[in-house]
């Protein structure tokens, strides 16, 4: 279970996407995610799918890792598409008792499946090609205007950096505690849902205790390295926009225009 989580993983590389300014990557991703949910007919859906595939291809990250990131959400995709299948409107094609399937429902199911898959793939693309520090640094800069209303921008971005850094460490620890409890005869697989939840307590308690101890030590280590908040801090990597970012913006703009044209020219399917 632990090995499958790809959250916050970064694949160093030199592709076009790796070299984009992280700020433009975030903005472009948000714009793109919105446009994925503005596809109302098959042509625009195809357009979005092709674009996603193209982005994955130029990211230079092995396709296997993308599949891994999909693996976790596959249940959500299946459940939502099944639900959508039965919630269509219009003439039923197939009916049994109170369950009915309509053409609209089938379309909906297909759209939801493809949209969610594109959404996950596009977001993975961002995290795979951007180092977590770059990502949080970019967020810090994008959110800087919020400083005016006393929103702790630097603190939030530091917390995110640390959280991303400690996700694998804490997962590893959970694994270790689980094995330790199993070695002492804890049974986590047997019994009904209730007993299984109860069996998680001997894992969660030590995990929390060690997480707090760890947090205290991390804070000490940070103080040892002269950390005292965001003021007076410099960054090793200076991020700035280049022509490359302009190309990225144009690419996404073209897709947005394309989707809108499709939506105007063709009939809505859902």
């Amino acid at each position, binding site marked *: 279970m632990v090995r499958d989580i790809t959250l*916050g*993983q*970064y694949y*160093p590389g030199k592709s076009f996407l790796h070299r984009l300014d992280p700020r433009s990557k975030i903005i472009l991703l948000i714009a793109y995610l919105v446009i994925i949910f503005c596809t109302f007919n098959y042509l625009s859906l195809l357009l979005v799918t092709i674009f996603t595939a193209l982005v994955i291809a130029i990211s230079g990250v092995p396709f296997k890792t993308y599949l891994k990131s999909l693996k976790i959400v596959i249940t959500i995709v299946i459940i939502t598409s099944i639900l959508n299948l039965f919630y269509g409107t219009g003439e039923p094609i197939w009916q049994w008792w109170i369950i009915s399937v309509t053409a609209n429902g089938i379309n909906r199911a297909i759209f939801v499946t493809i949209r969610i898959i594109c959404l996950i793939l596009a977001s993975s693309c961002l995290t795979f090609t951007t*180092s*977590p*520090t770059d990502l949080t640094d970019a967020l810090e800069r994008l959110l800087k205007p919020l400083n005016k209303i006393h929103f702790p921008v630097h603190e939030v971005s530091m917390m995110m*950096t*640390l959280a*991303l*850094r400690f996700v*694998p*460490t804490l997962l*590893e620890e959970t694994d270790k505690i689980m094995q330790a409890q199993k070695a002492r005869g804890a049974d986590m697989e047997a019994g009904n849902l209730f007993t299984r939840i109860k069996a998680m307590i001997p894992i969660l308690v030590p995990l929390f205790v060690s997480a707090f101890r*760890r947090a205290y*030590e*991390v804070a*000490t*280590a*940070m*103080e*040892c*390295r*002269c*950390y*005292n908040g965001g003021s*007076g*801090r*410099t*960054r*090793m*990597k*200076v991020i700035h926009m280049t022509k490359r970012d302009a190309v990225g913006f144009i690419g996404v703009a073209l897709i947005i225009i394309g989707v809108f044209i499709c939506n105007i020219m063709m009939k809505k399917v859902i």
Partner: protein
Amino acid sequence: MEFISAQDIYFSYEEIEVGKKVINAVDGVSLEIKKGEFVALLGHNGCGKSTMAKHFNEMLLPDKGKVFVDGDDTADESKTFDIRKKVGLVLQNPDNQLVASIVEEDVAFGPENLGVPPEKIRERVDSALKAVDMYEYRKNAPFKLSGGQKKRIAIAGILAMQPECIVLDEPTAMLDPSGRDEVLSTLIKLNRENNITIVLITHYMDEAVLADRVIVMDAGKILTEGKPDEVFSQVELLKKHRLDVPQATELIYKLRGCGVNFDKVPLTDEECIKMLEEVLK
């Protein structure tokens, strides 16, 4: 001139209550560390050596007594930043010291806090990583590295801040022999080539032998100090306080007890072999 000087310091982790006996983790210690020196602070678990280390860069303040770093009193809050810039502390667990998800970004964390200009940070990070022989791992994720490699990254993180002194709290604990060698040779190199003052806190006698000076602590007090051969020749004293001496020293000590004549005590296996060869001739 001494770089760090502790003057009769006391420290206790317990709340001071009237009528209750307070156990001091550090119980009246005075010591001096000179610039460019390689000092080993030796003692078994719970003797107060880690507590002592935290006094050197103001992570802890003494209950009584004073600590001076390069002439600055650690009790002076306005000097905190300067003191931590001069004295880098490497803690025991490297997992909890690495704050970024990429090695080079973690090493850059210290200089970034110091407000060093970006292009200078790059230089410092590269040279720090080269100094600990981890340059080719600069793009890796820390959690995928081995224990010894993580320790070396933690040392590089402090090194990039270009401190004048590095204090290391049991840098070789939990490492296998090759990991220990990696870390120790890095420290010796830093001391000899870059002239950085090193304070090595350890409970391994074999490591203390490498230092210019050894300070032995027991129950919050300094037991003895001096050059490694001076300290380890006091075998009875160390044994009485449940401390070991290097194996080579112990062998010669025992042979002496049997009536074999040796003029000095060896510290390393090689020395020991040489001495035995001479006697056997």
